[in-house]
């Protein structure tokens, strides 16, 4: 019998529908895989009982021919989504014990369509990080072994709390990416403020989609930077990501920034011809000192699209170099405002004091980790009297210029833009922790422009580095044209060949 955890979401859907397998069977197979994967530290809460209840209900609906689009499919949920009565802390100490009394719209949509929840996934604290090292629940290890490591050496490292030497699965959606690549769930929800879906996808050899801003409701997602945050899926194939996004997306009166545009059938776009499409390659993404293998991967991606009948042209996005610095003003500024709600009064951690200001300060001093604290302080500074215009307003003007760059390229008839996903393959846990936080921030150099302009972006695995680690390519589309990205992403996936994910050395 094929291992049920190795099926794609689409294959599992087919077998469930034909009743070759049951939801309880495939859910149990995943729960067992999760149990053996403790060393990766992907799940912060496993909801086994709930999963089995949901699976039984799904089996009943499948038998009654009342199945929803995701009926019986077990998935993981990033700890940033409010799930009623279940651990929701965005992996922060300050939300200790928080169990929301409501459900996020995105997860509610998934359950409405029949999906089964396996549990909550590890992440960088409040989604602030690029390596899943800022989580209060400790770092997540990638299922990819470092070059030349034996299984035993890998296993020994998973038993340490700092997991030093193992590879990071990226961040902030590191629990989601690691769990999907390790086949602990068929797919997972993730979120992306500056690259938090796409960089982890690239690092673990899977597919990640950050939809257009407003495509998914943000209701019930723990807020980081409200003008940049967007929900999206991580999955093992382009088709699986399309299936997930269709269920996650959609209008929501509870989020005034959520688009009323109906959700197309994204899966129908998978396999659609890309002949005649015009693909832009922006010269500004060719960074000084960029590794030759990233450059070669990018050229290969362009060649694949050309071979499929698309034309590839050079384009210019002149404000690209300013996107990352502008992001590190806008995102912390919004975060400092959003995270003001954690005051020790309404939920989570509380450090008692006889004085209200001291209660706030002590609670927040203890509850926030170093990266979150750093960003809140930067945000507070750039919004403070005398600096608001020089920093915040200037950054928002630059954001307008970044968006205009894209609009110009799309107005010239370009259907999508092709770029590398990350400047390198995955790095080691502990490798980029230094006195200069900017070193870590540079991970998002290719992804952050997309959030700044509100556009959709898809990352698909495109090959391996010299060291045998996965590398991804990014496609950037017009607002609300995710379908083109799915069509092009499928072309890349077909041309590159399905990524062979690592055998479970950790189990």
């Amino acid at each position, binding site marked *: 019998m094929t291992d049920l955890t190795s099926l794609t979401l689409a294959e599992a859907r087919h077998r469930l529908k034909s009743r070759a397998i049951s939801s309880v069977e495939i859910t149990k197979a995943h729960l067992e895989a999760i149990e053996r994967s403790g060393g990766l530290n992907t799940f912060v809460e496993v909801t086994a009982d709930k999963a089995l209840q949901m699976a039984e209900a799904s089996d009943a609906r499948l038998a009654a021919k009342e199945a929803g689009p995701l009926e019986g499919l077990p998935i993981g949920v990033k700890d940033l989504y409010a799930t009623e009565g279940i651990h929701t802390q965005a992996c922060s100490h300050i939300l200790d*014990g928080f169990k*929301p*009394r409501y459900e996020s719209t995105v997860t509610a949509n998934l359950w409405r369509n029949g999906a089964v929840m396996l549990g909550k996934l590890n992440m960088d604290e409040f989604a602030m990080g690029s390596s899943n090292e800022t989580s209060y629940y400790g770092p997540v290890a990638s299922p990819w072994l470092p070059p030349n490591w034996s299984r035993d050496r890998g296993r020994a490292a998973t038993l340490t709390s700092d997991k030093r030497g193992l590879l990071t699965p990226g961040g902030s959606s590191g629990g989601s990416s690691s769990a999907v690549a390790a086949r602990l769930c068929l797919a997972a929800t993730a979120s992306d403020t500056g690259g938090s879906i796409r960089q982890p996808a690239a690092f673990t050899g899977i597919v990640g989609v950050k939809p*257009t*801003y*407003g495509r998914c409701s943000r209701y019930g997602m723990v807020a980081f930077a409200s*003008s940049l945050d967007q929900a999206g899926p991580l999955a093992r194939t382009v088709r699986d990501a399309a299936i997930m996004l269709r269920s996650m997306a959609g209008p929501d*009166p509870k989020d*005034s*920034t959520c*688009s*009323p545009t109906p959700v197309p059938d994204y899966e129908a776009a998978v396999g659609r011809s890309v002949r005649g499409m015009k693909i832009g390659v922006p010269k500004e993404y060719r960074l000084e000192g960029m590794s030759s293998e990233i450059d070669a991967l990018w050229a290969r991606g362009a060649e694949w699209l050309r071979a499929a009948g698309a034309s590839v042209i050079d384009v210019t996005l002149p*404000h690209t170099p*300013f996107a990352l*610095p*502008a992001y*590190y003003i806008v995102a912390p500024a919004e975060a400092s405002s959003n995270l003001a709600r954690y*005051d*020790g*009064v*309404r*939920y*989570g951690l*509380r450090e008692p004091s*006889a*004085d*209200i*200001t*001291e*209660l*706030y*300060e002590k609670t*927040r*001093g203890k509850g*926030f980790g170093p990266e979150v*604290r*750093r960003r*809140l*302080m*930067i*945000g*507070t*500074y750039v919004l*403070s009297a005398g600096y608001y215009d020089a*920093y915040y*307003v*200037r950054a*928002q*003007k*630059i*954001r*307008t*210029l970044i*968006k205009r760059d894209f609009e110009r390229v799309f107005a010239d008839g370009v259907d999508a833009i092709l770029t590398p996903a990350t400047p390198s393959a995955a790095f080691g846990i502990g490798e980029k922790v230094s*006195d*200069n936080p*900017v070193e870590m*921030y540079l991970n998002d150099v290719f992804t952050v422009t997309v959030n*700044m302009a*509100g556009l959709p972006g898809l990352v698909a695995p495109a090959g391996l580095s010299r060291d045998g680690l996965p590398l991804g390519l990014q496609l950037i589309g017009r607002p609300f044209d995710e379908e083109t990205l799915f069509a092009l992403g499928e072309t890349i996936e077909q041309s590159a060949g399905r990524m062979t994910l690592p055998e479970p050395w950790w189990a």
Partner: protein
Amino acid sequence: MSVDLTTVRRIAHLARIAVSEAEIPHLQGEINAILKFVEALGEVDVDGVEPMTSVIPMRLPMREDVVADGDIAPLVLANAPLTEDGFFVVPKVIE
């Protein structure tokens, strides 16, 4: 631009985050590294450019001005660390 130690203390207080005196110099270094990184923005000519307010052009939806829910005080208070008689409890704030 860079921040001095006094400014770091002031920011920490504005952000309502308790920071020990020993951590201040370290935080100063990190904040200054980020401020140095964003200095590049000064090069950009932004004359006449409107600051972005909404990344996707969309009219803010309106709804009927009616009460849609309520009477859920127990749910609102369910996660509070300290409550009494249906209220959040805080240290005395009025003399």
